[in-house]
């Protein structure tokens, strides 16, 4: 299922917000809050797409994000995978 502009935007913002976090404990809450904004039938594709964005961070953007970016990325992927 192809997501729409709205879902892609939420996903992108969620990823960027998680990358900047200093406290990894709030990652799950952020993901849950973002998921609430998505229609029920699109939650899975939304999470899969968000996971894909994190994979891109791991493969291509890790040096650019700095800080706790890597740790947050890994934690976020673990959480998302349990929800898919």
């Amino acid at each position, binding site marked *: 299922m192809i997501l*729409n*502009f709205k879902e892609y935007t939420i996903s*992108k913002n969620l990823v960027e917000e998680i990358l900047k976090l200093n406290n990894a404990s709030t990652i799950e809450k952020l993901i849950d809050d973002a998921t609430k904004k998505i229609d029920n039938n699109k939650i899975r594709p939304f999470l899969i797409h968000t996971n894909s*964005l994190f994979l891109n961070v791991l493969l*291509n953007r890790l040096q650019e994000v700095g800080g706790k970016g890597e740790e947050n990325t890994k934690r976020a992927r673990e959480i998302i995978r349990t929800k898919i």
Partner: protein
Amino acid sequence: MLEIYKECTFTSSSSFNWIGFLTLCVAAFALYIARTNLIALKRSHKVQSHMNLINLENEVRRNNVKLKESIQEHTNSTTQEELQNYDPKKIIQAKTNRENCFEIYVTSVDKLASLIGTDYLSKQFSNRNWKEEYHDFFKKVMVIYQDHTLEFQNSEYKIPNFEKLLEEWNKK
């Protein structure tokens, strides 16, 4: 009668030794040539194996770069700027390209794993520690593979050699 027998024995024995000596020389020479050829063949085989391995390693690296680019392109197609002109076709195209790159990549990784997994290669290059060289790299490949199968549920690309080798390494 005894004289003839002695003469015959002497003649026959003398002739036999001479022919035997020549035969032995020819056999030794042939053995020497065969040994030299065998050593040259082994050396050339080793060089050939090394070249094949280097080519395969390069192929994997090239495919890795292409896959990373395709993932980047796929996620770029959904960035804010791109979405201003929201075009589902473009997103689908980027996704398809990513899937193709993934297929080529995992196939080459599986070939490399199957080659590394054979005893033959360990004997040929006893000074190389495959686990040390490839374990971290293969773990990254597994992350990509798991993500791909999560995202593309109908994915049919199997990597039996790679999975077997990684499992062995993880156990040790």
